[in-house]
Every structure is written in C-alpha cells, then in structure tokens.
C-alpha cells in the first residue's frame, strides 16, 4: 500500500478500515544469504539498500527488542554534513544527499527538515578552525557560510550577546543541515525493507556466532539457529559484546549520552544551534519540544542512563547561551548507549572472520549518518568493496597510524 | 626589603572584608604557604613540632598548621609569613621532603560566624558537595566550588577557610559573597 494524502483522506472517511501493518512479523527462516544483526537505524537502512539498490534477496534483520529501538530511537535528530577531515566529510555529504530524497524514495514522511545548523564560535582561533572546516565542506560539495556576530544576532537575537562569559564571535552555518523525525526514519526504512522482501525479526537476540574454519556460517539466536552466507553487525553500543562472540576486541568503548526534551512550546527556535563554549546544542521539534543535549557522562556504561552532573552541565550551557530558557522545563531525558571509537570516527569494514562485517564506532553522531551508513555497509556486503566515500573507515587504521580524529583528542573515547 | 608594593589576591592594596548577617568574609593577605611532599622512603617530618595530619584532616600548631593534601603531601600554613621565603624557613624543619612555595598560588578567604556553626553549615551546603563530617572542625580537603578547585578547611565550629586559585579570586569572592548575601536575606 502506498502512502499519500488521498489515502489518508479516504481512510478518514471510511473509518480507517483499510490500513495494513507497516511491516510483517515473519518467523525466522532456517537460513538467509545475508543476516544483519541490529534493527536500529544502521541495520534497517543497510537491509533497505541491500534489497532495493543492490538487489540482494534472502535478507533478514535480527533485532533483540523492537525495530528502531537502538540509538535511532533516542537521539537529538540532527542531520548535517559539517565535518573537516577528508576521511569524513565526503561520507557525511553523501548522507546528506540521501536525506534530501529519502522520503520520496521510501514513501514515508520522515520529516526531513533542512532548518540549518549554526555552530557558534567564541574566539578567533575557533573561527579560524571553523574556516578550515567550512572550506573542507565546500570543497566536498556541501554548503557552508561563515557568519560574523551581527549576522548571528540577526538570526537569533535572543542569544546571550551582551552579558556572556564567552562572547559570541560568529558561527559556521550549514543551511542544508537540520533535523529529521528519528522514529520516522527507522520506520521508513523498516517498511521499505519489508516491502522489498526483507524479513524483519523482532525479539530475536543473537547469542552466538557460528564460525567454522575462519568463516561465518550463521548465528545462534533466542529464536533458534539461523544460517547465513554473510553477517553484518550494526549494533552500536553493543558492538564489543557481539564481536566478542567472534573473539574480536574492538577500538571501542560503550558510553552513555543523555539527551533531553522540554515541554511543548510555541515555535521559538528555528534551526539547530550549538554552543561552542559549553556543552549544549538545541533545536525545536515540529511538535514544539526543545530537543537538546550536551556532553557524554564520560564513564563506560551499558546502563542506558546517566547522572545528574551532566544534566546540570547541559542546563548551565543552555542558560549561558539562551537566558530565556530559564522558564522552559525539562520534560524527559534518556540515555543512549554510544559506541565511542578511539578517534571519534566510525568503522565500516570486513573483519578477520570471512563473511563477518562490522559497522560500528558511530559515537554520538550515528543518526545523521544513517542513510550513508546503511548504503555504504550494503555496498561492502554486496560487493566486497568499500563505498568510495567510506574507504577510510577501516578497522586497521589505528595499527597503521591513520586515525580520523576530528577533535584531535587521541585514543581517549570519552573526549571525542 | 624590596621596594615594590604587593597586591592582595583580589587586586587591591588592602585586603577585602565584608559582613553578611552572622557571617564575615575576610581575605587573608599574609598567609605563608608551602607544599611538603615526602621523598621516597622519607619519614614524615614534624615541622615546628607539628604532627602532620592524616587523610582529610587539618592540624593547627603554634607556628604552622597543616592540611593533608594527598598521600605523603601536605600544605603548610604559616600565618603572617606571606612575604617570607617560606621554603627557606621550612627546609630545616622538613628534611627529606620536596618543598614548593605556594604562598601566592592561593587566595585565602576566611569565613567567620558570630552565631556559631549553623550559618557556616548553611553556607557549606550551598557551596560544596561534602558530607558534614568531611568538614567537621579539624578537617579539610580539596573539592569543587562553582567550577573552581578549592581547598576548604574547617578551622573551628565557627571558622571556615576557603582557598582558591589566586587568579580566580574575584570569581571565588563572587560565589561566596552572593551565597552569603542570600542566606542573610532568607534569615
């Protein structure tokens, strides 16, 4: 069934009797050509592109809980391609281009909204670094603008310009960046993959990997053994746990990142704003909630919940940047499980086990990458070759001394 | 004697003092400070006859007082010796130790209460996240206060000293005085 306005009106007039399930709930088959572990954004997008672009058949996505319940179900919905390093920027710009046509392609309104992202700078050095980054963006085919203080004031007059500890000295604006409705993205891919014949299997936890003679044969799950020609792992914060089943240690730590939403408010913040002198970024959802976040808690965790100091730190940043937020109320918080890598950049690569592929290390930036992450992983799974924009995301880049370290923090995941 | 005029940490020639209800905040300009760190295998000295305190504690002596600042480390306070070569003074008293002059590393603000411990406790719980016992009289520690690294010392039930980075003395005074002023209003 195609979704469109006419259908919505028709069903409205006829008592919503014609709607069908968004996806089937198939039982797992004994074997598939390709099994994707993880029914979050990465896994669903991978399956979608495998089936629709790379014309693979016999694909299953195994999800231990509910579809879209990974970090795609708990993030701050920002999409952008404003990276600096050549290993990253073309990939994120590829992702941005996929965002721009996503909804028409999947026939699902994921509410991609190019409202712009403004990164504020507070010193001359920061502005020089932004200039380097903005130029890298333009050189990769993305858009970028460097704003001075007056231009920022014109855009967002309510920011703290006059009584700031760290005065706003300008900002780097990407107008094509913005937000997307995170659940809508997961559901769009899930429905699209299902319609293309992919089996989406919920409540199916992988408990073991069957490896013979250095090659993957299948996966043990809570719903029985499932044979597989190839296995792609896209499990974000659980990457170390799953890969440990194959005896592999990863350059990854799992950390908790808290994010927040305020009560619904009439529109007051048009785009995405990030505060360059504190830990705070904010946008406003179409429902009116301010969606905001800050730094990770900083310690390894699988608990999916954080602690109070970070909540305070984020709120301090909010108040320092936008003193009007004093009377907005925090409504909900949540904790996501982040696969923080040693250089802050992801891994999309083969592994020492034949037929076992890894998509991990997204840190707290996986959402914006969802389309390209899925596409590039599908490319690798289908062709055995990395996608041209993802050639740097190799597992051996640390051994070889080729990190992609946007922040220049080195092998300390909690600083990326 | 050098013919240069020193400034207090708060940037004036004279130290600052202000009263908020039962509390008085006073910048102490002449406190000599020297850090003592035991070298490998050295025995803890007893400078000026003072038994150096254990973890979390502060010991007061006639000439000098000491705060435990870490394993094998103390901060020795020499009241009235702000201008002195404190390392030179302490060296004979602390053999086998590494000494570093810290006098000007810190701004010291003494807080006294004219109404016993209660106003100080009220101030404490709005400034630092330390269990009351951690700051019982005779105790002290380094901790965070409004994003600043500070040493807090409870010298007596009605006396609390806060030592902050000298460069951040203004911010420290702001934090302490604003909190004390609010308490006064609420009284």
């Amino acid at each position: 069934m195609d979704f469109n306005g006419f259908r919505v009106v028709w069903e409205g007039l006829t008592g919503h009797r014609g709607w069908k399930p968004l996806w089937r709930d198939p039982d797992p088959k004994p074997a598939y050509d390709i099994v994707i572990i993880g029914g979050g954004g990465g896994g669903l997008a991978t399956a979608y592109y495998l089936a629709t672009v790379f014309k693979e058949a016999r694909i299953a996505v195994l999800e231990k809980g509910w579809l879209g319940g990974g970090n795609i179900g708990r993030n701050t919905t920002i999409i952008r391609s404003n990276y600096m390093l050549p290993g990253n920027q073309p990939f994120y710009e590829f992702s941005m281009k996929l965002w721009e046509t996503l909804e028409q392609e999947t026939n699902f309104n994921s509410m991609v909204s190019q409202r712009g992202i403004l990164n504020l700078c507070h010193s001359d050095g920061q502005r020089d670094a932004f200039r380097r980054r903005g130029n890298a963006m333009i050189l990769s085919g993305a858009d970028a603008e460097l704003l001075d203080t007056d231009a920022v004031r014109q855009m967002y007059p309510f920011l703290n310009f006059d009584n700031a500890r760290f005065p706003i000295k300008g900002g780097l604006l990407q107008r094509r960046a913005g937000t997307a409705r995170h659940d809508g993205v997961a559901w769009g891919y899930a429905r699209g993959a299902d319609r293309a014949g992919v089996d989406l299997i919920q409540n199916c936890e992988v408990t073991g990997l069957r490896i013979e003679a250095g090659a993957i044969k299948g996966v043990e799950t809570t719903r029985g053994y499932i044979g597989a020609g190839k296995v792609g792992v896209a499990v974000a914060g659980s990457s170390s746990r799953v890969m440990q089943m194959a005896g592999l240690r990863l350059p990854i730590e799992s950390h908790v990142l808290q994010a927040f939403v305020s009560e619904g408010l009439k529109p007051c913040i048009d785009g995405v704003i990030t505060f360059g002198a504190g830990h705070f970024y904010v946008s406003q959802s179409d429902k009116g909630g301010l969606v905001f976040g800050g730094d990770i808690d900083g310690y390894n965790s699988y608990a999916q919940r954080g602690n109070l100091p970070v909540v305070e730190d984020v709120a301090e940043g909010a108040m320092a940047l936008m003193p009007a937020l004093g009377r907005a109320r925090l409504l909900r918080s949540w904790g996501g499980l982040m696969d923080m890598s040693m250089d802050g950049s992801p891994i999309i690569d083969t592994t020492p086990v034949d037929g076992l592929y890894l998509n991990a290390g997204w840190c707290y930036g996986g959402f914006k990458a969802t389309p390209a992450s899925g596409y590039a992983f599908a490319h690798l799974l289908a062709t055995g070759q990395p996608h041209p924009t993802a050639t740097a995301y190799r597992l051996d880049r640390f051994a070889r001394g080729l990190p992609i370290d946007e922040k220049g923090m080195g092998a300390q995941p909690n600083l990326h | 004697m050098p013919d240069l005029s020193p400034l207090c940490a708060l940037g004036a020639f004279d130290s600052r003092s202000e009263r908020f209800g039962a509390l008085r905040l006073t910048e102490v300009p002449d406190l000599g400070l020297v850090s003592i760190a035991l070298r490998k295998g050295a025995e803890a000295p007893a400078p000026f006859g003072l038994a150096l305190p254990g973890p979390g504690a502060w010991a007061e002596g006639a000439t000098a007082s000491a705060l435990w600042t870490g394993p094998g480390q103390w901060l020795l306070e020499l009241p009235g010796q702000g201008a002195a070569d404190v390392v030179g003074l302490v060296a004979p008293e602390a053999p086998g130790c590494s000494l570093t002059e810290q006098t000007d590393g810190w701004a010291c603000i003494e807080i006294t209460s004219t109404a016993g411990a209660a106003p100080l406790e009220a101030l404490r719980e709005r400034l630092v996240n330390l269990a009351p016992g951690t700051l019982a009289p005779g105790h002290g520690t380094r901790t965070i206060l409004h994003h600043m690294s500070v040493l807090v010392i409870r010298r007596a039930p009605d006396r609390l000293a806060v030592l902050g980075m000298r460069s951040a003395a203004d911010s420290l005074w702001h934090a302490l005085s604003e909190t004390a002023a609010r308490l006064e209003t609420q009284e």
Partner: protein
Amino acid sequence: MLIPHPLLGLRDAQEFTYLGDASLMSPPPSDDPEALERHVHLRDNPAGLLRELWFHEQGDRSWLVVTRDTRTHEILGAELATDIRREGAR
C-alpha cells in the same frame, strides 16, 4: 555517582576525571610495537565488571582503580593505583 575513595571515603564522582580501563597502566614492553598499538587502541569494553582508572583531580590527586559494574554502575571497591602497581611489580 559516588566514588569510595580508599583514604577519603565516599566522594562525589564530579571531583574525579575518568580515564578508562585499568589495563592502561600496564603497557607492554616498548620493543613490541604491535602489542603497544593494541594496548593503546583496543578495549575489552565489558558489559559487567570493569576495573577502571579515575583521577581525583579535585581532591587528593590520587589515581584510583575502581571496580564497577558497567550494567548497573554498582561499585565494588576502589584502590590507590600506586598500591596496585607496586604490588604488581613485586
């Protein structure tokens, strides 16, 4: 969070700076570059008990080895890193 400092008792974790897996304090010999590279970059990242390094930066400046369950955040103990390192050397 509260960290049970072996000398100072329970202290607010905000006084501490986190580093990570305590294995970082035991690098392999420098004549094995590959082992050293793995030491710097690879982690067990367990979902369960983890021995980890915390620096009491806003306290007594001790590095501690804290044993903590990464699933529940329960802390089972904390020791001075110097003590552990010296014992290990013996």
